[in-house]
Each structure stands twice: as structure tokens, then as C-alpha cells.
């Protein structure tokens, strides 16, 4: 049985093949039990719309990433700051957003707050909502990353006479990056997947496009299966990049 635990090349290949076969067999058997057949031809007919939806998802994700990073950093800084009013505001923001489901936030912000303040454009609303949502989670990641820096580091920086700016740039940031990069990349991956919920307000991104197509051709399984593959095309490279970055920035203390 050591073929399953040995670290030789043949062991790796054999086990990888076995794992792939197990998953494929499970899916194939499930489909067989239902007696249905798959027909993926619609992808060619609808390729333009799918392409547009894919592009929209990528665009929304990138815009939201930038905005949510800004929001998260701001909220983290305010929360650990000295001005109590701002500290409480940041706290309320983080607790509320982290404590409620995204679907509810989408409906609340789009139909009530968005309408009240005149934000008509769906895509803009979607980006704002998604950034606010992910920003709260990023704030927590940053807070945790900062808390992991040893207090002695900060004391040493003071002892050496660093200004605040120098402390942040030379002591805090390098040490924080290693700790926050993996969860941040994970959060970005979540962001891409959470953007699918913007279909609730009819933002024509990938999930909404697939939903509309499946409503026309009744090929629910093929549509959503293909949708899964497209999302994997976005998230798998991301997790690969994340692992590379992790290796690059990890340094021994």
C-alpha cells in the first residue's frame, strides 16, 4: 500500500490519475442514474454573450478589488486609530457587513439606499456594493496581519528613531505582506465568486448571462457546469499566483 504514500514520481502520477478517475466516475454515475444526456452545442451559438458576460465579471472584479482594498485599509486604520467617533463608525461598518448576507446587502443598497441617493447605474452600484462587502473582510485580514507583528519590532523601530512613515514602510509592511497575502488572495477569489450574486440586480455578468441562456434553452446542467468551468478559469490561476507570491514573500525570522 506504500504506492499511495511514497514520494516517487510514479506514485504522484498514479495517485493523481486515480483521484481524477474517482471524480469523473462519480459525476458520470450520477448523470447515468438520471438518464439524461448532455448537449453543449449552445456554447457556440451564445459565445458572444458569454464572452461579454465573462468580460464584465473580470472588469467588476478588478474594480471591486481596488476599491475594496482601499476601503479595507481605511477601515482597518480607522478602527485602530485614536479618534473614537471614526473608530466606532469603522466598527459598525465591519460588524454589519460581515454579519449579514450579501444578497440582503445587494437588495438593500440597490433598491433603497441607491435609489435614495440617485445611484442609477447598475454596474456602478454593483461595484460599490461588492467593494463595501469585501472591504469589511479585508479590514479584518489586515487587522489580523498587523496584530501578528511582534510588539518588540515596533519598540525597536521607536528605539532606533524611525518616523511613523519609516516604521510603516520598513518594518510593518514587509512583515505584514507575508501574513496577509494568502488570505487576501483568497478574498479576491471570493470576490470573483461573490460577483455572481450581482445577477440579482440584473448586472449582465457571467452568472446572469448563463441564467438568461438557460431560461431560453432549458439546458440548466450544461449551462451551470460550463459556468463552473469559466469561474475555475478565473480562480485557479489566482490561487496558483497566490502560492507563488507566498513563497516569494515568506522569509524566516
Amino acid at each position, binding site marked *: 500500500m506504500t504506492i499511495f504514500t511514497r514520494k516517487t514520481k510514479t506514485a504522484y502520477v498514479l495517485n493523481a490519475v486515480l483521484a481524477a478517475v474517482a471524480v469523473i466516475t462519480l459525476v458520470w454515475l450520477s448523470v447515468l442514474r*438520471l438518464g439524461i444526456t448532455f448537449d453543449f452545442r449552445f456554447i457556440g451559438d451564445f459565445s458572444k454573450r458569454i464572452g461579454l458576460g465573462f468580460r464584465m465579471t473580470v472588469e467588476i472584479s478588478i474594480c471591486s478589488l481596488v476599491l475594496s482594498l482601499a476601503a479595507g485599509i481605511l477601515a482597518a486604520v480607522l478602527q485602530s486609530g485614536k479618534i473614537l467617533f471614526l473608530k466606532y463608525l469603522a466598527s459598525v461598518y465591519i460588524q454589519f457587513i460581515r454579519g449579514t448576507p450579501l444578497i440582503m446587502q445587494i437588495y438593500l443598497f440597490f433598491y433603497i439606499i441607491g435609489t435614495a441617493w440617485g445611484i442609477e447605474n447598475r454596474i456602478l452600484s454593483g461595484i460599490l456594493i461588492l467593494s463595501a462587502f469585501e472591504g469589511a473582510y479585508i479590514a479584518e485580514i489586515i487587522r489580523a496581519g498587523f496584530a501578528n507583528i511582534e510588539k518588540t519590532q515596533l519598540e525597536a523601530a521607536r528605539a532606533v528613531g524611525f518616523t511613523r512613515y519609516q516604521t510603516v514602510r520598513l518594518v510593518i509592511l514587509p512583515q505584514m505582506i507575508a501574513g496577509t497575502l494568502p488570505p487576501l488572495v483568497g478574498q479576491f477569489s471570493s470576490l470573483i465568486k461573490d460577483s455572481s450574486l450581482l445577477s440579482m440586480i440584473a448586472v449582465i455578468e457571467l452568472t446572469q448571462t448563463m441564467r438568461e441562456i438557460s431560461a*431560453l434553452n*432549458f439546458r440548466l446542467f450544461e449551462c451551470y457546469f460550463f459556468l463552473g468551468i469559466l469561474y475555475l478559469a478565473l480562480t485557479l490561476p489566482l490561487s496558483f499566483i497566490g502560492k507563488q507570491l507566498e513563497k516569494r514573500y515568506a522569509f524566516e525570522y
Partner: protein
Amino acid sequence: MNVSIKRTAAFCAVMVYAGCIVSCTRRNGITASDAEVKEPLTVVMELAYPPFETKDADGNPTGISVDFARAFGTYIGRDIRIVDTQWDGLIPSLQTGRADMIISSMTITAARSKVVDFSVPYANSLLGILANRESCITKAEDLNRKGMKIAVKSGSTGFIFATENMTHADIITLADESACVTEVVQGKADGFFYDQLTVYRNWQAHQNTTTAIFVPFQKKENWGVAVRKGDTQLLEQVNRFIADFQSGGGFDRLTEKYLSEEKKAFDKFGFKWFFDLS
């Protein structure tokens, strides 16, 4: 043989055996055997469409389609199990065998008929428009202009009609009827294509912000009961039941119970009533 090879062989044998067991218990998608006649019939509907399909205060299914389904159960001597399912999931439920029938005020269309079998029509299906007051819409064609926004519910005949005919307008496809109504009320959409009854009810609820347009603008369409493709036995039973129910005044009783107000309004407007298939 040494221990390691014996163990590997045993492991593989167990896997193959398990695989055989799993593949042998295949579920047959088509109900054909007589032995299943006495089993409960699973009917799916989207319980978000009062007064046809909705829930009572305790969360139990109630409405015209529910009573209709139960009457069918009595007619063929089987229990009826009603399962609440989202609209886009109704036909997939039938395709995969999770359900036996769809009675959800579903319009008979050519595209749907390719994947399911429909019964004879049991009601008329006519679209109306819930329009925003400030959009100055008097007929359907007014919405077919650049810059006009039309809200529709995903998969409904309003969706099908709008995507096929309203080519100049922006179509906003949403999952819930209530979201579509909210869009019109708030002015985010200029019109919402849906059935006349719901349009009427929502207009009554939002008289300050909406108007209702009932002028018929499409070919006549009907509602039908859907069964799995090839399930001819059940289909024949349904067709016989519908004829029986109609001649026995069943639909009149349902109208009296759930829709008496609306029938009076429709008579006043001069519209054909749902169940009047003449």
C-alpha cells in the same frame, strides 16, 4: 504473495465491488410500471404567484393550482405531494425525475414543448404591462425604443416576448416578480411584462406610481400542465381530468373561491376570463 500486494488487490476489489453496487441501483427516469400507480404524485409549482400558487399563514401550499392538483389526485386516486420550486427549476425537476407534473400556471410554448409534454390548455395566458406612470406608455410598442427599460421575470412568457420583440429596449431579467415590480415602482424600469392578473393587482397596490396596460399585444396563448416527455399514461389521465373538471364547473368554483373580485374587474374591462377557453 507478500502482504503489500494482497492488500492492494483487496482494496481494488472493494472499489470495483462498490462501483458495481452503485451503478446497478440506477433510477429509471420514466414512470412506466403499474406498481408505481399508488405512490404519491409529486407536483411542483412556484409558490410565489398568488392567488394561483401561494402559501397560507402557516407556510402550507394554497391557491387555485393547489386545489386543482388535489382535485386531480382525487380523480386518479393518488396522493398529491406539492413541492415548492423556483420557476427556472421547474422543468429541470421534471427532466431529472424529481417531480412528475408541473402545475404552475405555465404557458404552453414551442420551446418548452421540445423538452416536456403539455396537456390540453386549461386557461388563457395573456400578458399585460405594469408601466411606470412617468414613462407615458400607452401600448406595448411604446416600450420598443432605445433607452426604454423593460423588467421581466427570468423564464416567463414576458421574458420570452420581450427578448424576441422588444429589440431596441434594454431588458432587465430578474428572478423575482417582486423585484420586477419594485423596479417599475421606483422608475428603474419603464415597464414589466407579466400576466394580466398580477399586473392588475400590483397596479391596485401602487396607484400613485404605476399604470396598467391591458391591451392585448400578442397571439393567444394558453396554460397547460406539464409532464415528462414520453409519460403518455399520466398525460392521458390529465387530459381526461381537465375535460371533466371543465364540464363539471370546477373552474367556476375556483374563480368564485379565489378570484371573484378580479373577475368583476375583468368583466368591467371587457377582458376574456382566464378559464373561458371558447
